[in-house]
């Protein structure tokens, strides 16, 4: 110890203490905390998937186009113009020359290969980190050629997951209500399509009023409200078989159906003598359970993903507000307290948020809040935005938007998507007008 002066015991102690404290930091590294960044689309180069023959090349180009479109629509990616590509695509199958991609501004590169032989389609892709010059992931799939779109969606999902950490939502479908005719004589039919609008198909013929379809989280089933024989009731429809059945035998109108997270039961409202309350019906046993018993309107119920809680819409406080209760109906508490009316609460599949419709002052919004009512954020605004539905990963919402109708009843209803930032708002094209979208889980 050669400190200046006499080493007093105190100084010694001090030294020891300081030394101890400092040891971890002994290398004296500079520490910099970055707390602000940007949130903008990542420039990604999606090279046409290579094929050894014309047929495979053609298929590769189609798959690539779907992937590009998916990634672009997510708002998280910006596709670098293929015209700027330097490196030859065929050579990509070996290894990218990263400098070639860096120079055109790409941060990630997607390359792939497609092989179509008879009734088999094989597709593989690699996602490259251009800066790190490494492969982030690479997967290979095989299926029948007619399934090429799903391949493209599954690959898109894998890329999405690699970049965000979150599961993707591209390999999903949307069921919605297709609308034709003027406001006062609307014909409505159930329709289904891929998340990107492809493979559009009608499920009902329009002779009966149908509303509010919702996907089962576990099966290829839809529950919805139909006015068959002028008796509004909740129905189940199996999309694969076309088989449908009424849910339960209730003395009054049932409506506002939704599946429980395990797909075993349907929660819905039953209207009796002018009063709507919330019930569940266990599908295998048909057992019915009443959850609310209040003279107010209780409707639009939605389970939390763990099945422990239910959020619903009620006017028990004087106007439409959002409430949360336990799955057995106990412990009801109001969570919406802002100005205006709140409706259609839907619990996010990842549990952290509840999406809702809010209106007042002549405008409607789609918004989200935490299940305790805090952190309210409005994502959209228009004359009428309604009925949010979550992508299975809980990062994107769809809803429908309606424009005012003129005296001839001409207005437009269309389906839109928006992400949690509210910045990536896009219209989803449908052949006719559309409303009441419902997002499927990832296709199994």
């Amino acid at each position, binding site marked *: 110890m050669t400190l200046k002066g006499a080493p007093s015991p105190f100084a010694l102690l001090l030294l020891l203490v300081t030394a101890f404290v400092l040891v971890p930091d002994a290398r004296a590294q500079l520490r910099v905390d970055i707390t602000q960044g940007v949130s903008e689309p990542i420039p990604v180069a999606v090279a046409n998937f290579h094929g050894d023959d014309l047929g495979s090349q053609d298929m590769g180009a189609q798959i690539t186009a779907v992937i590009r479109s998916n990634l672009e629509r997510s708002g998280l990616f910006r596709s670098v113009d293929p015209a700027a590509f330097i490196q030859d695509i065929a050579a990509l199958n070996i290894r990218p020359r990263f400098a070639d991609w860096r120079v055109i501004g790409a941060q990630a590169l997607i390359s792939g290969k497609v092989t179509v032989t008879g009734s088999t389609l094989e597709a593989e892709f690699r996602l490259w980190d251009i800066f790190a010059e490494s492969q982030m992931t690479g997967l290979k799939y095989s299926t029948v050629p007619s399934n090429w779109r799903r391949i493209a969606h599954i690959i898109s999902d894998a890329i999405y997951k690699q970049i965000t950490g979150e599961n993707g939502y591209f390999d999903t479908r949307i069921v919605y209500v297709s609308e034709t005719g*003027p*406001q*006062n*004589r*609307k*014909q*409505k039919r159930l329709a289904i399509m891929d998340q990107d609008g492809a493979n559009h198909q009608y499920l009902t013929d*329009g*002779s009966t*009023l149908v*509303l*509010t379809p919702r996907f089962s989280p576990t099966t290829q089933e839809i529950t919805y*409200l139909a*006015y068959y024989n*002028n*008796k*509004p009731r909740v129905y189940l429809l199996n999309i694969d078989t076309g088989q449908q059945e009424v849910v339960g035998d209730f003395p009054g*109108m049932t*409506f*506002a159906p939704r599946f429980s997270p395990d797909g075993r039961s349907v929660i819905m*409202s039953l*209207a009796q*003598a*002018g*009063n*709507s309350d919330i019930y569940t019906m266990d599908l295998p046993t048909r057992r019915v359970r009443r959850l609310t018993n209040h003279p107010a*309107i209780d*409707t*639009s119920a939605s389970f939390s993903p763990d099945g422990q809680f239910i959020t619903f*819409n009620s*006017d028990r406080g004087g*106007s*439409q507000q959002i409430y949360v209760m336990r799955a057995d109906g106990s412990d009801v508490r109001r969570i919406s307290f802002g100005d205006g*009316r709140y*409706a*259609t609460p839907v619990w996010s599949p990842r549990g952290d948020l509840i999406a809702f*419709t809010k*209106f007042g002052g002549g405008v409607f919004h789609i918004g989200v809040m935490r299940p305790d009512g805090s952190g309210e954020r409005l994502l959209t605004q228009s*004359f*009428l935005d*309604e*009925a949010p539905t979550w992508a299975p990963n809980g990062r994107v919402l769809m809803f429908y938007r*309606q424009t*005012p*109708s*003129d*005296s*001839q*009843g001409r*207005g437009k209803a269309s389906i839109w998507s928006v992400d949690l930032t509210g910045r990536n708002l896009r219209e989803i094209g449908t052949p006719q007008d559309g409303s*009441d979208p419902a997002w499927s889980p990832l296709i199994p």
Partner: protein
Amino acid sequence: MRFKLTTLIAAAFLVTACEAPTDETATAGSGGASSASTSSTVTSTTQPAQPSIVPGTQEDLVVNIGDRVFFAFDKSNLTAESRATLEKQAAWLTQHPQVTVIIEGHADERGTREYNIALGDRRATSARDYLISLGVDAGRITTISYGKERPAVAGSNEEAWGQNRRAVSVVN
């Protein structure tokens, strides 16, 4: 008599999808069986003389009594005017004991679909309960709610909305 029957059926069952002959009025069918209110116009025009309105029909109800009552925004309570209309309906129903009715509840488009279905149900029930309180047999009245699905008047303005927040009695 036979003619009367077919008229009745036609009136009762005209389906919305049907382009009724002279149906250019904005007050098109309020849905399903409800379009009877519209078809009454039809039958009246197809029949030469007004006086031939058959008592106890939808047409009779529309023309001579008033088939609907209106509500304030997000409300289901009856106004004095509504009660007056319903009192006339009750008397009329007493006069025609063979008639049964469906009361359709409706809402304007300024609300969410599911809540409006519940609200329409509340409105229909409100009208029904009043009729019953006036002595009409409960077994003669059923209700249905269309929420905001079947506006009577097209357009997105206060006037249209006021016309659409309604409960309509439709002869079965």
